[in-house]
């Protein structure tokens, strides 16, 4: 059988096998609730008879997922919205903050990449600001902006700006002098040179920065929404934890992973389209 399958085919079979084994191991490792009659007196006295919240079995999570995904956009009040609505809120915040960051980081990165003086002048600020955990900005953002929604967007902005800024600067600074000379001997102006030579030359590096940034933004939004509350997938996870609905918690963790994967592969697709070989 192994002779007839392609490498991808083998990998897919193996993946499914790992999934099945994992799910079965998970399912059987959940201890069934013991009946009161089977308990020792000591266990009964220790409260063993009362229903316990345990890790739900995969079958319970699957049932929850089916229930949620069959009606993802229902809205039954502030604490009971469909998974689709929550994800849409999170994505909206991520894309707003990320879009603002890109709008600022890419032109600024161009400037830094083109001018060694600008690079040296701005580098100390970047090096200090970059390692700050985005959530550390949250109290300051809440105080200054006075709006939790905008503060969450600000946190996304501040965490996604650095990889894009540094990669754009790096990509622009690394554009081969030969290509710049081609632009010069063709008398291209600064803007035409930037758009038709430097941008396509630096595009793969810039896209890599954008891909790192979107990954970080998606990581950070969950934590940010746990803090600001109201809506979003981060808030949803925390809310279901408060409800001790672990099936929902696991389901939403899974959804965070899937959305993150989709965002990443979208950039992967884009980077393959803009890649070039020398």
């Amino acid at each position, binding site marked *: 059988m192994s002779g007839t399958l392609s490498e991808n085919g083998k990998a897919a079979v193996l993946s499914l096998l790992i999934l099945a084994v994992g799910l079965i191991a998970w399912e059987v490792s959940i201890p069934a609730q013991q009946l009161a009659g089977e308990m020792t007196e000591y266990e009964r006295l220790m409260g063993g008879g009362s229903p316990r919240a345990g890790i739900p079995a995969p079958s319970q999570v699957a049932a929850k997922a089916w229930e949620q995904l069959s009606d993802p956009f229902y809205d039954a009040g502030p604490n009971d919205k469909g998974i689709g609505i929550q994800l849409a809120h999170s994505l909206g915040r991520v894309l707003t903050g990320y879009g603002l960051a890109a709008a600022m980081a890419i032109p600024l990165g161009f400037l830094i990449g083109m001018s060694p003086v600008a690079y040296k002048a701005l580098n100390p600020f970047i090096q200090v600001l970059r390692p700050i955990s985005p959530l550390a900005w949250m109290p300051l953002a809440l105080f200054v902006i006075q709006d939790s929604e905008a503060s969450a967007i600000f946190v996304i902005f501040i965490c996604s700006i650095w990889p894009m800024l540094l990669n754009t600067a790096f990509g622009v600074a690394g554009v081969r002098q030969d*290509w710049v*000379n081609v632009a010069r*001997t063709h008398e*291209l102006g600064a803007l035409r040179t930037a758009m*038709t030579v430097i941008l396509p*030359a630096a595009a793969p590096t810039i896209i890599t920065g954008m891909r790192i940034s979107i990954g970080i933004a998606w990581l950070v939004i969950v934590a940010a929404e746990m803090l600001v509350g109201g809506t979003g997938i981060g808030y949803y996870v925390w809310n279901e934890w408060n409800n001790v609905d672990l099936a929902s918690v696991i389901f939403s963790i899974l959804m965070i992973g899937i959305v993150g994967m989709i965002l990443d592969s979208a950039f992967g697709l884009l980077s393959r389209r803009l890649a070039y070989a*020398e």
Partner: protein
Amino acid sequence: MTKPFLSIERLTQRFPDGKGGQVTVFENASFGIERGEFVCILGHSRCGKSTIMNILAGLAQPTSGVVAMDGAEIGGPSLDRGVVFQNYSLLPWLSALANVRFGIRARHPDWSRARIDERAREFLSMVGLQGEAIDRKPCQLSGGMRQRVSIARAFANHPKLLLLDEPFGALDALTRGTIQDELLKIWSGTGQTVFMITHDIDEAILLADRILLMSNGPYARVAESVEITIPRPRVRTTIVEHPNYYPIRNHLVQFLGKRSKALSGTPSEGRPQVPEAVRIDLTDPLPPEPARLHAIRA
């Protein structure tokens, strides 16, 4: 005396040597190129050929001296001076066709897409590129094909002066021969003025009207200007049978082998360094007496 089409006057280039002093690559170099002339410059590596090329292209500034083309001083890069770089310098994210279009669009921003496209295809086919090859990216083309695209891009813009920086340096001998023939064909059709750097003596004799010989650095100089007294059209297979071929070739080999070293390192002491005109022609009934050579020099 009227100035030649391209005149290089007292061109000097010095670089810091990294120890606080200066290295003089060449100084007071003075020579000219006539309109429609094909001139090759021969010399050892690091003698400053590429520096001269970059100055002519406007990509580098000389320490002192003036380069004028058509009466106007060269101050920076211009579409009037097309460059073919040794490493092709094609934009790798564009197809061969799009690379040529890129050049034409820069030259003629007012042209329609269709007209630009037509001109690009025309020049690509002149260097023997047609069909699906022109839609490939440079990385999918062989070195020879890339250099063809680069030549097509330069010629399609009809620059007043075409600068070729060792265009065939990275190619194998067979490919080199084919593209030399294509270059000759496209050049004889357009009558462009060409200034070309090369390391290859036979290539220079085949292509050039005149060969400038450069001595080694530091204080390199354009020491001789050798006229190629072999009539055109020249064909690679028959050119070697011409009585002038080996005398010229021997002269060049002797220069590169001996005299280029002997001349190295002598400062100009403020005098313009004009190359000595050399004419070797065994088909000429008059023997090349010293007096005759002198007359040509003056």
